């Protein structure tokens, strides 16, 4: 009997015991879920202050969103006005309904924040530079998908907040030259936000966009690994020295196909299995001594990050419920009518000019973000070498924050500039 159990166990787990180095490597290498990790990681890269684990936290928030989202789908019908009644049910009838909805809501907000902070971290550490340029581009698309998911999810409760945020949001899109109007009709499946729009947003929110974001996330993680794992912490960078370029992976007589930083340095990994030299960062012998096995060092930290993220969202959801206003009423626009907070910067711009603020500025912003790794020709990652880049990006971040803060706290009825400490009597008109 014991033999049968052992045989069964060994048919699942084929690695050596974890007490051996080979076992630790094989745990990673023979496991489809873990093998996106390297077998060994640089100790320095595990430091919290290098990445703040923002990528992991974003991913964990997404997992929370997937699970709570699927749970919520069991009680939701995507047509008005049942959609709103279902929200009421979730709030007052369904067991743990308010809690699950709050978790979904706060995790969504958290994901928008963490994606943005993750982007800032990657910029400030210069981690988008060669060979990681394309992964930055994928990251920008993931940011856009995150925003799209938030936006489509925002309509589903079918309350006043949802209805008018989407009315304003989709009308911004219709200012796009030539195709704007048709694009809006295609998105809404009609001429105004109605049943067709709710169904389309639902399909986008639960099927199309999650599929896209999962596919791109896979590519994103894969590229992190193929580009040499996490970038070296900035404080570990050596003073710049002239880099010699060597040819990798091509026979001597043929012109170099790919070049990379050279050297006598070694790369690590399971060399018995992976042949050829990877194109990514190499490590010096002393750094290799600084490397540790992913199991348990990296996995332990990831597990902590997962637990902190989940506990954090659960704790917030216990105390703060997701808002729900009255049933959507196309005849009555709330005053002021505001988009979700992360679009309030956009709405602030739009309040000055719909075309410039709503279409040109955001389009430029996206294009500039996408192109950053290609027009930043400075190869150095050290902060002292990239003062200009850091300043420009900081201005970009601060400008966005100011616009959002103004839109959120300083805009009252009729979009008038009213500081938050001044009390306005509602319905004073």
């Amino acid at each position, binding site marked *: 009997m014991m033999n049968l159990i052992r045989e069964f166990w060994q048919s699942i787990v084929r690695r050596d015991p974890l007490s051996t180095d080979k076992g630790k490597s094989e745990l990673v290498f023979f496991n489809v879920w873990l093998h996106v990790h390297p077998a060994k990681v640089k100790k320095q890269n595990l430091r919290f202050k290098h990445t703040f684990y923002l990528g992991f936290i974003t991913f964990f928030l997404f997992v929370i969103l997937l699970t709570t989202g699927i749970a919520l789908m069991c009680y939701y019908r995507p047509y008005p006005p049942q959609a709103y009644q279902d929200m009421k049910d979730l709030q007052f009838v369904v067991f743990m309904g308010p809690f699950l909805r709050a978790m979904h809501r706060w995790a969504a907000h958290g994901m928008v924040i963490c994606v943005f902070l993750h982007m800032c971290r990657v910029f400030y550490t210069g981690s988008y530079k060669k060979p990681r340029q394309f992964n930055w581009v994928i990251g920008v698309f993931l940011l856009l998908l995150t925003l799209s998911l938030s936006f489509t999810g925002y309509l589903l409760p079918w309350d006043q907040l949802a209805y*008018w945020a989407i*009315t*304003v949001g989709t*009308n*911004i899109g219709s200012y796009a030259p030539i195709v704007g109007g048709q694009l809006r*009709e*295609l998105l809404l*499946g*009609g*001429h*105004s936000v*109605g*049943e*067709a729009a709710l169904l389309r947003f639902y399909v986008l929110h639960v099927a199309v966009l999650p599929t896209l974001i999962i596919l791109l996330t896979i590519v994103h993680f894969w590229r992190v690994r193929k580009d040499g794992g996490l970038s070296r912490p900035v404080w570990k960078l050596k003073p710049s020295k002239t880099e010699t370029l060597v040819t990798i992976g091509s026979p001597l007589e043929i012109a170099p196909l790919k070049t990379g930083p050279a050297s006598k340095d070694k790369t690590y990994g399971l060399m018995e299995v992976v042949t050829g030299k990877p194109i990514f960062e190499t490590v010096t012998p002393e750094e290799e001594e600084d490397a540790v096995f992913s199991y348990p060092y990296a996995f332990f930290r990831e597990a902590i990050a997962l637990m902190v993220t989940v506990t954090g969202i659960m704790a917030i959801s216990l105390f703060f419920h997701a808002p729900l206003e009255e049933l959507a009423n*196309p*005849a*009555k*626009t*709330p*005053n*002021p*009518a505001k988009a979700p907070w992360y679009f309030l910067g956009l*709405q602030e711009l*739009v*309040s*000055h*000019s*719909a*075309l410039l603020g709503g279409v040109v500025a955001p389009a430029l912003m996206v294009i500039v973000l996408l192109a950053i790794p290609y027009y930043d020709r400075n190869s150095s990652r050290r902060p002292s070498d990239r003062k200009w880049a850091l300043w420009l990006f900081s201005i970009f971040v601060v400008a966005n924050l100011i616009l959002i803060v103004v839109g959120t706290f300083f805009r009252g*009825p*009729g*979009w*008038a500039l009213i500081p938050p400490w001044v009390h306005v009597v509602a319905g004073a*008109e």
Partner: protein
Amino acid sequence: MNRRAFLNWGTAGLVALCAGVGVSLGAVLRFLVPSVFYEPPQSLKIGNPADFPFGAPTFLADEKIYVFRDRDKGFAVASAVCTHLGCTVGYLQSDQRFHCPCHGSVFGANGAVQHGPAPRALNWFEVTLTRDGQLRVDKDKVVPSNYRLMV
């Protein structure tokens, strides 16, 4: 197969492939455009002329229109949809202007933009009298702001 035949067939195949993909994409796009809109009609009867008072305009919430009735000039119908981003504007009798709650656009009594980001004046719709003596508004027919129906 010689080179000429290969290139000919290859080109033809490539063209056929592109055409196939193009037609399929077009079909998908067309599929996403509804053939029937289950939306409120654009042209609708709003009631008898006598139902509407003189002076302050009547707001019809479902239709998103303001019906003006003037003792001397007759009927006029203004759209309540802000030309900026589609919020519903409110008419204030006190200052006789339309105010948009979303981005603070202000329109005069004739619908012209007086303040704010709105790019165009509010629309005025054609209003006619039907055979059974009711008012009919056609939202597909935009008329100048001085258009009036005398009853």
